[in-house]
């Protein structure tokens, strides 16, 4: 049908509609609603798909950690399993928060079952991302303080659950202490946090990691989170990196 004849047909139809309307007869306009219904259906389907994926992700219960941890310098060794995994994290780094949210349960399970041990390297490369600067170091220090306080596994998770936004002040020392007290921190946890006791160890570990070419990306940069097994950087885009490591 050509454009002209189509226009002609529509004109006739509209004229007929007008005559019917004048005579008090309502013409059902059913067909005109089709596009709106299609639009509604497609958008609802999209929202349902996105919502279902979100629900599937958020319904998994948190695995409670039962492993123990020790620290040396700014490195915290968790668990005693044979496969040793090096994890480099900065506590204000949003991608680290995502890493913990995505893989936290899997890592905790493997640690609980004694399959792996994880060496958490406390890194502060994003000190400038808080205002005032220095949250990365303060939070990293608090994490190191939580080891002798006997609460490391849960405190580590807590720091990411409560991660402050970049650009803000971050959690104050008082807030960092309160989070630990909530979890039953023992000993002089508060003094350790206030005194920024492990500040130098964190700075030293950060420098060491920065200089380690094995941890750098293609651009020669070191970032967090970085995971290495046997001194080799792991590709975190491969979501089964941990299963692969377990063999």
């Amino acid at each position, binding site marked *: 049908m050509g454009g002209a004849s189509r226009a002609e047909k529509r004109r006739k139809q509209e004229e007929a509609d007008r005559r019917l309307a004048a005579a008090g007869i309502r013409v059902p306009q059913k067909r*005109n609603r089709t596009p709106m219904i*299609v639009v509604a259906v*497609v958008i609802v389907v*999209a*929202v349902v*798909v*996105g919502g279902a994926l979100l629900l599937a992700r958020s319904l998994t219960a948190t695995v409670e950690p039962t492993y123990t941890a020790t620290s040396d310098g700014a490195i915290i060794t968790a668990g005693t399993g044979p496969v040793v995994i090096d994890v480099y994290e900065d506590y204000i780094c*949003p991608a680290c928060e*995502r890493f913990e949210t995505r893989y936290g349960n899997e890592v905790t399970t493997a640690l609980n079952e004694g399959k792996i041990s994880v060496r958490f390297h406390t890194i502060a490369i994003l000190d400038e991302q808080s205002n005032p600067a220095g949250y990365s170091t303060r939070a990293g220090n608090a994490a190191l303080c939580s080891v002798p306080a006997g609460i490391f596994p849960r405190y580590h998770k807590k720091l990411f659950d409560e991660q402050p936004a970049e*650009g803000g002040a971050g959690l104050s020392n008082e807030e960092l202490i309160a989070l630990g007290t909530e979890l039953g921190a023992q000993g002089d946890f508060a003094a350790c946090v206030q005194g920024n006791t492990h500040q130098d160890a964190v700075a030293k570990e950060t420098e060491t990691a920065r200089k380690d070419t094995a941890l750098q990306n293609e651009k020669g940069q070191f970032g967090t989170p970085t995971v290495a097994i046997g001194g080799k950087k792991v590709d975190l885009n491969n979501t089964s990196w941990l299963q692969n490591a377990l063999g």
Partner: protein
Amino acid sequence: MNRARSLDVVGALARLGLAAVWLVSGLLKVVDPDQTYIAVRAYDVLPDAGVEVVAALLPWVELALGVLLLAGVGTRLVAALSAVLLLAFVAGVGQAWARGLSIDCGCFGGGGAVEPGETTYLQELLRDAGFLLMAGWLVVRPRTVLALDDRLGTRRMG
């Protein structure tokens, strides 16, 4: 080719262009949900739960708008929805700029904090303004060539 027909072709270009924008931006976000979460969070507007919801739904809504524009179904309605979403993006980028945050908009994947000197707010807003023009054209004049709206028997409000 008469004038109305030419305008239909211009409309089709706007429709397909906007469809491409949504499909590409939606796809880049869908394949990397963690990055999308980081991008949404960086605007520092919503609480964490809100960030989760927006990051989960936004990519799929963008894809839906893209598919609908590509097919040309309910063009005026979809263009209006596109304009609303684009205005929300403009507001998001605008508030980030005004507050002095240094983030990447994450419009087409990526996103999150960047170095203070590396923000491109002006370019991002100008790009959105261009997309808004395309949406605006289709709201005012939704008739385009090669649209499914023709077959569904309406060129009126879709």
